[in-house]
């Protein structure tokens, strides 16, 4: 009997143990190690590892490539975060108003398809469309008698190509999440509002939007993270951060420092900077949305 009781006490820990172990070993521990490594000059090949204090941070901040990457990160965020929330919201609201169930299903699937592709698959599709010599876009432009473009090879266009492909590949998830939330709003509420002469716009802003605010909040937080994250894959296949670092971002900078140049100290310092940034942004979002989110029951 007592063995049974002991078992019952232990059981929850056996159930959550593996999950805890995995996140501690593979997610938390690397972050802690990064902080440690960021204070050293280790580069993987050299046998020695010296404590250098904040030298890596000083070097990074002095590195023009890092500054470019930081500015780009800001630019990506300013453009992509609103776009990846507002456009999917509008699309979700539109799909909800499509009466024909077959058409609605088609739109949903078609718009979601890019989301389930690998970065490399998305990458080759666009590399091919953008291809300066034989790509579709330039062929179309010259057929229309317009000047062709170098697209992602053009230093001033590269960042916008990356932005666009990232958007193309990622808006679908938010669309589905927001759509799922909109669908779950009781019809009776909207009908009641219609009887009270509230037009479609008014219904959207006074009823639907407040009622999906928890999902909206969830989407806002995860989108910020995803924008930072997802771009790395797109950059890697489309431009490799180039030309001349014009389309890099800070995560890609870190990735390059670490795994192409094996500057582990500097890469770790970059990752610590990113962690701090992410923490600040997430906390700010919680603060900002906390009291505006409407939870039912």
């Amino acid at each position, binding site marked *: 009997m007592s063995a049974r009781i002991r078992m019952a006490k232990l059981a929850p820990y056996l159930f959550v143990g593996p999950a805890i172990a995995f996140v501690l070993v593979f997610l*938390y521990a690397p972050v802690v190690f990064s902080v440690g490594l960021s204070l050293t000059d280790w580069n993987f090949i050299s046998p020695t590892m010296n404590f250098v204090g904040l030298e890596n941070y000083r070097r990074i901040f002095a590195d023009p490539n890092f500054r470019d990457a930081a500015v780009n990160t800001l630019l990506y965020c300013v453009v992509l975060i609103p776009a990846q929330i507002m456009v999917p919201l509008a699309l979700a609201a539109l799909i909800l108003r499509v009466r024909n169930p077959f058409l609605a299903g088609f739109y949903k699937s078609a718009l979601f398809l890019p989301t389930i592709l690998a970065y490399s*698959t998305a990458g080759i599709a666009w590399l091919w469309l953008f291809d300066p010599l034989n790509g579709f876009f330039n062929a179309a432009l010259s057929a229309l008698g317009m000047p062709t473009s170098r697209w992602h090879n053009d230093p001033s266009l590269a960042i916008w190509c990356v932005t666009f492909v990232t958007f193309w590949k990622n808006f679908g998830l938010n669309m589905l999440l927001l759509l799922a939330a909109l669908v779950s709003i009781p019809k009776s509420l909207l009908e009641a509002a219609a009887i009270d002469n509230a037009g479609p716009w008014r219904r959207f802003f006074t009823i639907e939007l407040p009622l999906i605010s928890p999902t909206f909040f969830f989407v806002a937080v995860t989108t910020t993270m995803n924008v930072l994250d997802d771009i790395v894959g797109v950059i890697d296949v489309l431009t490799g951060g180039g030309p001349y670092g014009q389309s890099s971002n800070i995560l890609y900078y870190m990735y390059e420092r*670490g795994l192409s140049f094996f500057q582990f100290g500097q890469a770790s310092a970059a990752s610590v900077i990113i962690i701090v940034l992410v923490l600040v942004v997430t906390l700010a979002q919680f603060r900002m949305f906390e009291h505006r989110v409407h939870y039912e029951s």
Partner: protein
Amino acid sequence: MAILSVFPLLWIVTTAFTPNDLVLTKAFRLLPESPTFDNFRIAFTRFPVAAWIWNSLVIAGLVTAGKLAIAVPAGFAFAHMRFAGRDTLFWVIVATLTFPTIIGIVPLYVGISMIGWYDTLAGVIVPSIAYIGFYVFFMRQAFRSLPAEMFEAARLDKAGPLKQLLEIAIPNVLPAIASLGVISFLGAWNIYLWSLLVLDSPEKRTLTIGLKSFIVIDDFEPLWGPMMVVGLLSMLPVMLLFLLAQRFVMAAFTGRVGE
């Protein structure tokens, strides 16, 4: 908008069936002029594409199995068991949702190399299982929808925790588990940056990173046709899976996310 989102994919399909010499001259046809399977032959003979398909399947399958095996019991414990530190442990797991995926990549890479997992599938699979924040959260929500009385009755019948989980809880949340399985498979099939770092030898690669070797192989013009064949192969399974399971996944999502 719908056309815009599908067009690049159609273009992959078209190019995959267009003979290579035509690819470079006529960029303008949605239906290939003289459709051919040549590109498939070229792709499969010049690159170990069959091995890539197998590796992708193994990785996606094992990552999914691992995630479910870990997240399901944890979600159950967080939903229906009382124990010291429960809320703290829950947040320790869910907080990882805010970690950028590649943030710990340097120490992880060093660690994997030190235990000899560099260039092995295990090196890709095991660390990838750790991204379970969403899965644990989702499973807790699913198990919460089951009434507590269900398990109290089982306890009176002297059913142990494992029996409660396997015989009562899991059969009642199968749709939720299945949709997580689909989501995980889609995600793991597409793992990109991490496998690019860990897998090195050509026959160890997956489809998604095999594609990358097409991009870099020729300094002049890449082999667009065969490249699109591999692209097509990399997207077909996930597209089919998504179209088949769509209803299912949507239903599981509705009303659950953001609660």
